[in-house]
């Protein structure tokens, strides 16, 4: 087994650099995302997803339980979130008539964010959205909303022709532009939306796992071992900080793009 990639489940306790247990560096691979279910199909990410959903609901129900004109501290925190979505995303991208989509955008943002956040919360340490099924579900939902609103507001055929023939181009350009626009808007958008979120969370978690495993593996009584272990630990801390940033950023991007798609479906691009 020397030099080979070892599945996490097979890592021997006490497998350190220099120990002659016949084990090399147990590099984490994609198998760390396949987790044994607690029961049935309830795996750790499913459990964290449900717990996160519950936390969002409980937090905002308490924060906005009896809202006052002069807010309490909890209400202020909730309001910051609400105004961030309403003013920072909805009104910025869609405009004033986007106010009716604020609950949707608000739910998407916090649902995605808490799902990502589990990746660095001690004890949980698994980003829910690194399981491809969750971003795909959300992206398909966004795509359906995008298609429905577009066909309703611009007409079932006009929606697609508006998208394929943006005004102000020389006529021959449309030969190339029209199919590209159609494919990019209708087919590529949901795919990129889901993969962007999934891949960021997947890569982040893999990176953190690599440095964490390396911290333990390199911890051995030798100069290289101590230096390597300390460096790996430092990298784990630094990348945890990066992850915190990326998690919020990806939730923001997902929500922002949803708003952009909705804006595009309400009004033809000029």
């Amino acid at each position, binding site marked *: 087994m020397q030099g080979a990639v070892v599945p996490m489940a097979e890592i021997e306790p006490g497998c350190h650099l220099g120990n002659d247990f016949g084990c090399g560096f147990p590099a984490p*691979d*994609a*198998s760390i*995302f*396949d987790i044994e279910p607690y029961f049935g*199909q309830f*795996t750790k*990410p*499913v459990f964290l*997803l*449900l717990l996160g*959903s519950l936390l*969002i*609901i409980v937090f*905002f*129900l308490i*924060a*906005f*339980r*009896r*809202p*006052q*004109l002069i807010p309490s501290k909890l*209400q202020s925190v*909730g*309001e910051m979130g*609400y*105004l961030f979505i309403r003013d920072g995303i909805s009104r910025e991208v869609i405009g004033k008539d986007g106010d009716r989509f*604020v*609950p*949707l955008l*608000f*739910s*998407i943002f*916090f*649902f995605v964010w808490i799902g990502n956040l589990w990746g660095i919360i001690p004890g949980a340490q698994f980003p829910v959205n690194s*399981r*491809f*099924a*969750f971003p*795909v*579900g*959300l992206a398909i*939902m966004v795509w359906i909303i995008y298609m429905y609103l577009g066909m309703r507001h611009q007409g079932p055929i006009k929606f697609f022709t508006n998208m394929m023939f943006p005004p102000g181009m020389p006529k021959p350009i449309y030969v190339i532009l029209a199919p590209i626009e159609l494919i990019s808007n209708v087919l590529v958008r949901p795919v990129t939306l889901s993969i962007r979120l999934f891949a960021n969370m*997947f890569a982040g978690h893999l990176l953190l796992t690599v440095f964490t495993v390396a911290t333990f593996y390199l911890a051995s009584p030798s100069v290289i071992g101590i230096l390597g272990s300390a460096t790996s630990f430092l990298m784990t801390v630094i990348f945890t900080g990066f992850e915190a940033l990326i998690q919020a950023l990806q939730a923001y991007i997902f929500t922002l793009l949803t708003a952009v798609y909705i804006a595009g479906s309400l009004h033809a691009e000029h």
Partner: protein
Amino acid sequence: MTWMLAAEEGGSNVLRIPMFEFVIGLVAFFIVFGALAKFALPKIKQTLEERADAIEGGIKRAEEAQAEAQRTLEQYQEQMAAARAEVAEIRQQAEAERASVMEEARKAAEAQAAQIAANATAQIEAEKAKALADLRRSMGGVATDLAGRIVGESLADDARASSVVDRFIAELEQASPNGGQN
């Protein structure tokens, strides 16, 4: 129960989409969306609108109060200016009145003084003339008597006697320059 986007026999495939996760993910999202959209967000939306109203109303009320204060200030300043003008006018009137009263009083006093002086002068003149006449008459008689007794004869000729007396008195007056004041 699973869709294989990129089938890869044996090894783990991260792009696999287990139907269970796909469904429970969407169900969880719709529960979150439903709870927030129905129970949490409408309240805060209403509160934020009320707050915006309250702030806008407050600003409007403050503007009204300021305009009112400005109006009151202008009114007050107007009144102050009017009152000042009135005071100045009254003072000027009083000044003029005082001057005229003083002038009148001065004139009356001067007139009265002149009257008194004139009266006094006239009286003095009259008394002086009367005294002179008395003196002249009695001195004439006395002197004539005295002279008659001295010469032992009566100076019967009155005409002569009279001229002598007159001459005497004239000499007397010449000798005493202050005689007019006696």
